[in-house]
């Protein structure tokens, strides 16, 4: 009954979404506020109904109700509880329900907190949001219904792919979806503006926080996915330029551009049409990501099961939304008022430069990801485009962008003084030069570009700090004065600095790990040792273990450094009986200097094993950087200036702040 209620709620949500899509548009067209007002309860009800459906599905998973086809296919009674729950979105159908749940959450948020939006804008936005929900709910109900039943019910499920049975992976899809789906808000606002042929002043102010929130979660989601790949796949790598990774990275690049162009639009009333276009592109890339992952055109560890019908359906959704929105853009964009032009050397100019490089590098990733598909479709020839391609294209395009990052926040709006800014950045330049020299001295080996990369990382970090120092007149005014100014700085400034510094931290980690990682592959008999990066590992042998739903072979390695014991690493190979599958669990010793990473390979003669050992210097920074970006985004989001003014509040503005007791 719970499952059936969930199923009904899902279909009812589809009905409500249709109402939400149709009535408000008619309402704004014929200027009828009552029809337009239906959008608000519709968005809220839609969220509640999908919430009921999602809860019902979760209950089915938690209680192992194998009469639900989806549960039978993707769960197993012997699975630990956390993976029963994460199993809800560990499969195609369930993850789609989570997808629309988040979509509905955003819609409901606009409906609930959007009282300070112009009514027409809100109705149009919610109608567009409703149309996305209609498309995906139809998709779920017709091709990916998680509530289909089996009768008679099986006795046990097929289990969840063991690689997916992992805490980081359990939480990473929800983050990614919040990111992908969050960009639907920017899309809905853009299309709403196009429908009405006008951009309200509130537009950018509303779009920016939503985009920022989506961007934050996408950042963290991608970082979590990369972290998971690092410790779970057992290759010691953190980014593979896998098409599915690219599918999440492209919306991130476009979203980052959108974040910055919306800033120009809000502050300077310029770049309006571009921002609208970018909003459409960003969400289109999110949709394309969904298509690539779910249609089976790509092969990847992340890809869901292949089903041509689904692929065709998503392709249809993509065609309607991307094609439709671009057509609407071509038709209506000329109606929108253009913003003014500005000097090339100015904050706006820097942000345009940022947008240019971000979109072009995004396009390079796009080409690298889709070219093999296109080539195969046209000529039937199969190729793979891997890391070398992206290193040759993406990296050279991004380096000038990163070099320019510290300049941006220091330039004034409208007309900036490049020379003055360069002077302020002297400290940053000196520090990075110093870092380059130190890196050169420390590592004679390794690629010659690597020390420059380290310099770039420090340039970004110190450059970000320079902004705060400059704005608080550090070292120029007295300490007290600077302290007072620091407290007065808007939070958005700190957010910017944190996020930009986060990029620098990430660059440090990326450069150090790629350039100076060491690797050993040895056949080790018990008692054998490997030396790597100053550590000595002694193989003590293997033992067998038993987990909740797997058996494992655990290798034991004593790690010493300079004769002093450091830790004991226990990499293992797990075999899962139910899924008839195996995974490798790396043994990782985390330290700030770098990770020691041990993988137990195949057994050889006489108790020996192939053993692969890595030392990844500074690898932690790769994920610390995005974490800083996430926190920076969060700090910015709390800035009061991101809140939007409303007519009612405007009247109170002239009055003094009311005392609490009054």
């Amino acid at each position, binding site marked *: *009954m*719970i499952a*059936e*209620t969930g*199923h*009904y*709620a899902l*279909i009812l949500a589809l*009905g*409500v979404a249709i*109402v939400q899509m149709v*009535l408000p548009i008619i*309402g704004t067209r*014929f*200027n*009828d*506020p*009552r*029809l337009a*007002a239906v959008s608000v*309860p*519709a968005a809220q*009800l839609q969220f509640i*109904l999908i919430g009921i459906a999602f809860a019902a599905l979760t209950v*089915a998973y938690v209680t*192992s*109700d*194998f*009469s639900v086809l989806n549960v039978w296919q993707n769960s197993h*009674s012997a699975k630990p509880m956390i993976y029963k729950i994460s199993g809800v979105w560990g499969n195609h159908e369930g993850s789609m329900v989570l997808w629309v749940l988040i979509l509905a959450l955003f819609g409901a948020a606009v409906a609930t907190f959007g009282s*300070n*939006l112009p*009514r027409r804008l809100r109705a149009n936005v919610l109608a567009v949001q409703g149309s996305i929900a209609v498309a995906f709910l139809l998709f779920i*109900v017709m091709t990916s219904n998680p*509530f*289909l*039943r089996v009768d*008679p019910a*099986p*006795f*046990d499920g097929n289990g969840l792919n063991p690689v997916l049975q992992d805490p980081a992976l359990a939480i990473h899809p929800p983050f990614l979806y919040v990111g992908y789906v969050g960009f639907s808000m920017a899309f809905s606002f853009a299309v709403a503006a196009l429908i009405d042929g*006008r951009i*309200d*002043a*509130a537009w950018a*102010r509303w779009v920016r926080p939503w985009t920022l929130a989506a961007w934050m979660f996408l950042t963290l989601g991608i970082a979590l996915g990369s972290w998971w790949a690092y410790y779970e796949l057992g290759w010691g790598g953190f980014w593979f330029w896998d098409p599915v990774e690219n599918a999440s990275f492209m919306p991130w690049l476009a979203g980052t551009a959108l974040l910055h162009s919306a800033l120009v639009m809000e502050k300077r*009333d310029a770049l309006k049409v571009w921002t609208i276009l970018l909003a459409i592109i960003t969400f289109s890339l999110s949709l394309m990501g969904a298509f690539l992952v779910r249609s089976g055109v790509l092969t990847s560890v992340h890809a869901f099961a292949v089903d041509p019908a689904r692929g065709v359906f998503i392709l249809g959704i993509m065609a309607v939304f991307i094609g439709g929105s671009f057509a609407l853009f071509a038709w209506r964009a000329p109606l929108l008022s253009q913003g003014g032009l500005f000097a090339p050397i100015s904050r706006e100019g820097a942000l345009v430069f940022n947008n240019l490089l971000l979109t072009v590098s995004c396009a390079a990733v796009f080409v690298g990801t889709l070219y093999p598909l296109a080539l195969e479709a046209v000529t039937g020839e199969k190729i793979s485009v891997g890391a070398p391609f992206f290193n040759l294209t993406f990296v050279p395009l991004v380096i000038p962008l990163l070099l320019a990052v510290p300049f941006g926040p220091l330039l004034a*709006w409208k007309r900036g003084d490049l020379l003055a800014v360069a002077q302020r950045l002297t400290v940053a330049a000196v520090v990075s030069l110093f870092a380059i020299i130190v890196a050169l001295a420390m590592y004679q080996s390794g690629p010659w570009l690597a020390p420059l990369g380290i310099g770039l990382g420090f340039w970004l970090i110190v450059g970000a700090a320079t902004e705060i120092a400059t704005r608080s007149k550090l070292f120029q005014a007295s300490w007290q004065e600077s302290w007072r*100014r620091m407290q*007065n*700085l*808007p939070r958005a400034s700190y957010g910017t600095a944190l996020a930009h510094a986060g990029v620098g931290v990430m660059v440090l980690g990326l450069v150090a790990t790629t350039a100076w990682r060491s690797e050993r592959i040895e056949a080790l008999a018990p008692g054998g040792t490997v030396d790597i990066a100053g550590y000595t590992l002694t193989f003590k042998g293997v033992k067998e273990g038993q987990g909740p739903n797997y058996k494992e072979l655990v290798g034991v390695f004593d790690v010493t450094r300079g004769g002093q014991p450091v830790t004991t690493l226990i990499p293992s190979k797990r075999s899962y009986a139910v899924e008839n599958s195996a995974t490798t669990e790396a043994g990782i010793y985390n330290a700030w200097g770098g990770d020691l990473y041990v993988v137990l390979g195949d057994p050889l003669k006489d108790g020996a094993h192939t053993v692969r050992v890595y030392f990844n210097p500074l690898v932690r920074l790769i994920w610390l950087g995005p974490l800083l970006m996430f926190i920076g985004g969060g700090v910015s989001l709390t800035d009061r*200036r991101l809140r*939007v*003014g*409303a*007519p009612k*509040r*405007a009247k109170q*503005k002239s009055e003094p702040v009311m005392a609490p007791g009054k």
Partner: protein
Amino acid sequence: MLLWVILAALTAVVLSFLLYPLVVGREVVNERDAFDAAVYRDQLDEIEADRARGLIGDAEAEAARLEVARRLLAVDEKNSDASGEGSRGLLPRAALVLVVACLPATVLGAYLYYGSPQLPDQPLAARLTDPGQETDIGVLVARVEARLRAFPDEGAGWDAIAPIYLSGRRYADAAEAYRQAIRLLGPSAKRLSGLGQALVLEQQGLVTEPARIALEEALKQDETLIEPRILLAIAKEQEGNFDDALADWRGLRDARQDDERWTSMVDARIANAQARKSGEAPAAVSPLTPQAGPSAADVAAAQNMTPAEREAMVDQMVKRLAARLETNGDDLPGWLRLVRAYTVLGRSEDAKKALAQAKDLFAGNAQAIKQLDTLAADLGLTS
């Protein structure tokens, strides 16, 4: 029924909230420009605040202020000539009727097409602890059997149905189900014990070699199990090894000293074994365990016979077995049982002959030869 009430209530609540704005009308306000103006005023305030904090210079602030002020003025001008003209009445009412008429019908139709309202939830815990709640046992068994025919590799299904077969006296099926469960899920004490019981009961109480192995294995995994101990004690009686059987019975008696019914039952067995050991007529013994039901009764019946009658009955069983193996020799457990039975009956020549025959038959099968040799050694037939 409850499901339909819930669904109807859900629909009603959703419709009433959804369409509430259509019923309660609101005034048309052309407020867009007012919103724009509010945003610009906010921006002006911000510029002023930034200037006051010294974040931007006076000149910069002035330039920004001027620009925002210009936008604000533009809005105010537009505002004055704005007019709101809206359609009245007809549209909302039409929408209301349309939605109320179409939405529930469409949703219900789609649900009936995709959903299975007749199916109850079947959480695993409820199904395992109380399978009878779902439906009567016969239907349940039929459903599981249908399921297992389609998916014979579902260990959990075999595991669930095996005890039901056992208590339903379908011993051959029970033994097969336990075997499948062991193959798919691995040998657990419970499954091995079940397999042993099923095998014994299938042979009307005769503890065959495979049964003995399964029971011993079960006991090795879980010493607290009672059924294997009882059946193994009986096995020893059947082999004529009354000393060991008595030891087992005494151990069993000690295990559950507080239970009056238990001790009296085991005491009876002890008395019986002692009597048989000394060659006397055995006393009547009550059936052992519920599972042992029918065939334990058979055994008890056999024990009620005179020694001569009993010997005749056992003789018959052995003859039947020998005849069957003559026509169909590919039955290792059968041969093992036959050898054992001959030995119990004191016909060691026949036992040796059967052993030799079996070894010939299974010449290529090292496993079988090993089992036969082990048995021969156990029974002292090798010398």
